[in-house]
C-alpha cells in the first residue's frame, strides 16, 4: 500500500512503487486535468508540482513521491496560481488546450522561483513544455503579465 498526498489529501493506493504518478492520477483517481502526451518526458503535458517544483508525472515513480506534497491543476491555490490563471484568461492564451494544464503548472513553478523572469528565463524554464498549436508567444506574454500583476 502506498500513501500519496495529492492536493492536500491523503490517498491510500494499492499500486507498485514503480507505477507512473500520471497513471495513478488519471486511471485510479480519475483526476484527468493532468494530460498524457508522450509518456516519456518529452512534451510537458503531464506536469504537476512535487513540493513546489515542476515534475513530469509520466516519468515520476509513485514510490519516489511518498511523503511529498503533490499538486495537480485541480488543486491550484495561492496568489501566484491566481495571477497566472487571470493572465491566461486576459490574454486568451489557450488554443486547443491540450498542453495548457502542463504549461500553467510550469509557469507557476517558474514564477514561484523567479519573481520577474526575463524572456530568457521563460524560454529556459518552459523549454520542456511543447504546444502543437504554437501558443508560445502568448504564453510568454501571459507570464510577464502575471509577474507584473504580482509586483
Amino acid at each position, binding site marked *: 500500500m502506498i500513501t500519496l498526498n495529492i492536493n492536500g489529501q491523503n490517498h491510500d493506493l494499492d499500486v507498485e512503487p*514503480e*507505477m*507512473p504518478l500520471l497513471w495513478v492520477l488519471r486511471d485510479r483517481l480519475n483526476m484527468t486535468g493532468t494530460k498524457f502526451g508522450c*509518456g*516519456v*518526458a*518529452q512534451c510537458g503535458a503531464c506536469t504537476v508540482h512535487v513540493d513546489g*517544483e*515542476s*515534475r*513530469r508525472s*509520466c*516519468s*515520476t*515513480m509513485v*514510490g*519516489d513521491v511518498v511523503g511529498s506534497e503533490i499538486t495537480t491543476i485541480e488543486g491550484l491555490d495561492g496568489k501566484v496560481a491566481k495571477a497566472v490563471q487571470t493572465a491566461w484568461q486576459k490574454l486568451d492564451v489557450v488554443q486547443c488546450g491540450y498542453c495548457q494544464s502542463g504549461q500553467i503548472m*510550469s509557469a507557476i*513553478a*517558474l514564477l514561484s*522561483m*523567479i519573481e520577474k*523572469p526575463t524572456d530568457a*528565463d521563460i524560454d*529556459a*524554464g*518552459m*523549454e*520542456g513544455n511543447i504546444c502543437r498549436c504554437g501558443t508560445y508567444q502568448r504564453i510568454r506574454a501571459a507570464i510577464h503579465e502575471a509577474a507584473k500583476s504580482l509586483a
Partner: protein
Amino acid sequence: MRFAQICLRQFAVISLSVVFGTALLFWQASNNLSHGEGTASAADSLKAWDKIATVLENPRCLNCHQVNSPLQGDERRLHVPLVVRGEDNLGVPGMRCTTCHSQTGNNPTSSVPGAPHWSLAPLEMNWQGLSPGDICRQLRDPKKNGNRNAEKLVTHFAEDELVGWGWTPGKGRMPVAMPRAELTEHVKTWLAGGSECPK
C-alpha cells in the same frame, strides 16, 4: 651603449626564463597526486591512463561532463528538451534535473534514466573540448577534481553511485564495456605510478 642595453635585456630575459622554467618544473611535479597504494612505474601509469581514457569517452560518462548542457544518447547529441546548467548544476527554475530524472534509478516505464545525485558534473570537471591528456591533468588536480586525493579518487571510480550507473544505464543505452573492478585497478596503477599524463 645600445649594445650594452641589448646585452642587459638578453640577460634579463634568459635569467627570467630560467627562474620561471624551474618554477614550472616544480609546479608540474607537485601537480601529480600522492601515489596511493601499490607500486607501479611511470610507464605503467601512462599505460593505465590510456585504458581509463577509453572508459571516460563512453557517452555514459562524457554526456554529463559538458560545459553548459548535457548530451544525450549513444550518438551524443544535445539533450532534448534543452536543459542548462544553472547555478547549482541541477538546471534552472522550471527545468531542473529532477523535473524528469529520479534519484532512485532508471524509470522502467518512460525509460528516463536516473541515479542518486543525478546532475551535470561541476564546471571545473568539464571534459568538453579537452584532450585525454587535458582530462588527465584535470583529474589529478585537487582544485579541479572535487578536492579528491588518491584514495578519494579510487573511491569515486569504485563506489560512487552515479558513476556506477554507467554500468546499468537501462534499455537502449550502451553500458561501459570495461568491468568496474578492472577500471578501478587501472586507476590504482595510474596513481601508484605517479598519475602520469600524456602530452
